[in-house]
């Protein structure tokens, strides 16, 4: 297990290096450059553009910029935004906490929704609940985040405010203070809509996955045996069936967590949350390389860590699965 984990970590480092190098190169291939982009409707004199290039070291050859980037990275310095001169470290520090909280609540809501809908649909197969769950799963998956987000803002913000139904107004500012890192210290309503929007997209898919996986397991011989032994339905479902049905679901859930990151990016933009979402979009458009590269490192590292955790979790869920470094090799 230890050797395997170390090897996977090393692989992840190589992936991060390759991806960041590729992205670094892309910034010099795509048309335009971040400094001349500063000239919009009004042209900036070349002398001014030269000043800005010198300030960010963009007047140096590409390989010098590349080596300097990695040199600074090893010292923990991700550079400064071309757009507003803000430290990328600060941007990441500020943004990561918000994104992490949104991801936490989104993932939690997703799990609750997926388990509830999936279990209900499987156990009460063919019932009204199952049918509603199916419609919900299919319907919600097709709605883009920017639509569901704005719709949620209208239904649970604008409309209740106009009708003076403040109790239903869940469109509130993102909390400013937190307990234990993730519990809102104020404006708890502020997390509900963004987290739900993040959650529902893949929750529907996971719920369908859990339903079909459970139905398959419930047809297995050992489940029939368990019922024949006189075990209660609840014990059979939750102790024997659910545990086995969760293996494929966990795989999907792990992948989904990475996908959630993408959904969270859009959600942060739609809800204007101070996370990394809008920063990624804005920085990419304005070719703000230091910010994009800094964020890329985080996103790629996040993906690698999640994949590793998912692989390791198989062994915890099903003791029959053993991770063998040699086999992996």
């Amino acid at each position, binding site marked *: 297990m230890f050797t395997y984990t170390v090897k996977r970590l090393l692989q992840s480092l190589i992936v991060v290096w390759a991806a960041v190098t590729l992205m670094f190169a892309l910034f010099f291939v795509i*048309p335009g450059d971040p400094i001349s982009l500063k000239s919009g409707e009004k042209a900036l004199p070349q002398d001014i553009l030269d000043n800005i290039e010198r300030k960010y070291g963009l007047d140096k050859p590409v390989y010098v910029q590349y080596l300097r980037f990695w040199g600074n990275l090893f010292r923990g310095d991700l550079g400064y935004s071309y757009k507003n001169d803000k430290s990328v470290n600060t941007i990441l520090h500020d943004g990561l906490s918000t994104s992490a909280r949104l991801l936490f609540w989104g993932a939690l809501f997703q799990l609750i929704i997926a388990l509830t809908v999936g279990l209900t649909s499987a156990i009460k197969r063919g019932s009204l609940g199952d049918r509603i769950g199916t419609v919900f799963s299919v319907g919600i998956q097709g709605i883009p985040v920017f639509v569901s987000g704005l719709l949620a803002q209208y239904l649970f*913000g*604008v409309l209740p405010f106009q009708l003076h139904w403040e109790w239903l107004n869940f469109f509130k500012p993102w909390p400013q203070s937190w307990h234990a890192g993730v519990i809102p210290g104020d404006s708890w309503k502020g997390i509900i809509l963004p987290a739900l929007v993040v959650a529902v997209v893949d929750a529907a898919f996971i719920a369908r996955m859990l339903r079909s996986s459970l139905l398959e397991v419930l047809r297995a011989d050992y489940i029939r045996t368990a019922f024949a032994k006189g075990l209660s339905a609840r014990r059979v479902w939750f102790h024997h069936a659910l545990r086995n049905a969760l293996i494929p679901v966990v795989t999907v859930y792990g992948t989904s967590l990475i996908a959630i990151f993408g959904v969270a990016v859009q959600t942060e933009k739609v809800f204007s*949350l101070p996370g990394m979402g809008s920063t990624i979009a804005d920085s990419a458009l304005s070719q703000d390389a230091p910010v994009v590269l800094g964020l890329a490192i985080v996103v790629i590292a996040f993906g690698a860590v999640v994949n590793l955790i998912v692989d390791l979790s198989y062994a915890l869920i099903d003791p029959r699965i053993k991770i063998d470094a040699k086999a992996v090799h």
Partner: protein
Amino acid sequence: MTLVSADYLRMVYMKVQTLGKRSAAVIAALALAVGGNVVVAHAAAPAYIDCQLFGAGEPDFIDPALTSTLVGANVATMLFDGLTDTDANGNLYGEVASKWTTKDGAKTWTFTLKKGLKFSNGEAVLPSSFVNGWKRSMDSKLASEVAYHGDFILGMNAYSTGKGAFPSSSVVADDKAMTLTVKMENPTADWPSIVGHSVFSPIPTSMIGASGKVEEDGTKLVGNGPFMLDKAITKRAGGEVVIVPNPNYGGKAALLSKVTFKISSDVNAAYNAFASGQCDNGPIPAGRYAELLGKWGTKGVKTTLGTDYWGFNWEDPTVGGTKNKYLRSAISKAIDRNQISTVIYQGVRKPASGLLPPGLPGYTPGQGITSTRDLDGAKADYKRWLDLGNKTPEPIRLSYNDGAGWDKVASIIIANLKEVGIPAKLDPYPADGTYFSKMRKGQGQIIRAGWFADYPIADNFLYPLLHSKSIDGDNLERYNSPVFDALIDSARSTTNKSFSQSQYRRAEIQALRNDVVITQTVNRGIATVLAPSIATFPITPLGMVVYDQIVKN
């Protein structure tokens, strides 16, 4: 002397309400006795939350030396007062300067400063504060995008490009006499208007040599405006910029106790935040002007000093040069500006009749070849052009940057031209920020463009947009007219205000009516929806909201 808090007074007032006049008088007397000698300027001022200013993006900077955007400059002007400024009616007035004089044919200007003004940290605002501010903002190491505004000053270009020292002999402060003398590179009759730009703000000694990161710490960006930063700012979507009244402000005190600017990355989300009660004003999503202004009122609508126009590439064989004047005038007469104003901007941007916008000193209406649609005139001019043996080998391209709604404007114009028989087509350029640099190289045929005033003077439109020295810069049409240049040059070199305005007017006619090198469409405006509690919402023609004069009930 004790200052009684607003909460304390509110509590006393509530007691008055509940106990009746006699008891109230006793309580009030006791309250005053406990409070000591009371100084109360006014009742508790309301706080204000703005979702509009940064409703669709983050500011670049709010540091006056660095900001190059209207939204950033709006906050900067609340934090810093310059020598002069423009009021909500477009009138120039002395802000820190009490008066100014000129000599040497507008090549030397002397400003006399008001005495007793202070920065928010208590330091006096002196002529040397301006020298310090300009030294910082024009420093090549600071690399400000707006440092080039200093090029009007003799020798400043060498300093701002790192090729020379600060031109101390051109900017001379006399702190005893409270005068600041500035020597210009060329005669600059409009200097008092230009020096109102935020890049010419003063700084206290604590900010000498400060980097651009100074604004990230609320205690370090110290200004002399009606407000001061409340805390370190978070210039991120979802973040806030909070300003509070400057206790040392020498002018009229702000009527609000706090202004919070909420930063959003999405205009729809920002509007929804307003409509769900989170803010006092909010932006209007595209296409909803008529609906939302009808619902919330039009107090937040103002025509500003900006004009949208389409330019003809002067070097293009089909539309450029003197030989194609009739085609250009046909196109100009064919455009239905009213349709663009009502359909696209729902009346917020008004049909323009010239390049210079209403409200600009020296503005004269009707300077363009036409301000209303003249279909018959367009057909006649097009026929004349064809009769001269000209033809359009392929549809004329209307170039624009994609993703900003210009395709809708271009589509209207193409439909307008079709009625005249002029073939035209859309020519979108990717929304990657490279559109203007490509147009500057002469790639366009009919070019979508626009301009917003840096300072309220005619020269700020006519020189950068149409003078031959601006080719490769903002003269996207690559217009090169000795007649036009001569008119502008003569206007710039005189201190006779009426003569210079007359020359600018003639130059505008030369470009728009005689040469028809550009055709104006609409004048720009800004619009915001306001909560019913907002009684007064002043906006200057430069598009700056005067937050210190907002009245909230």
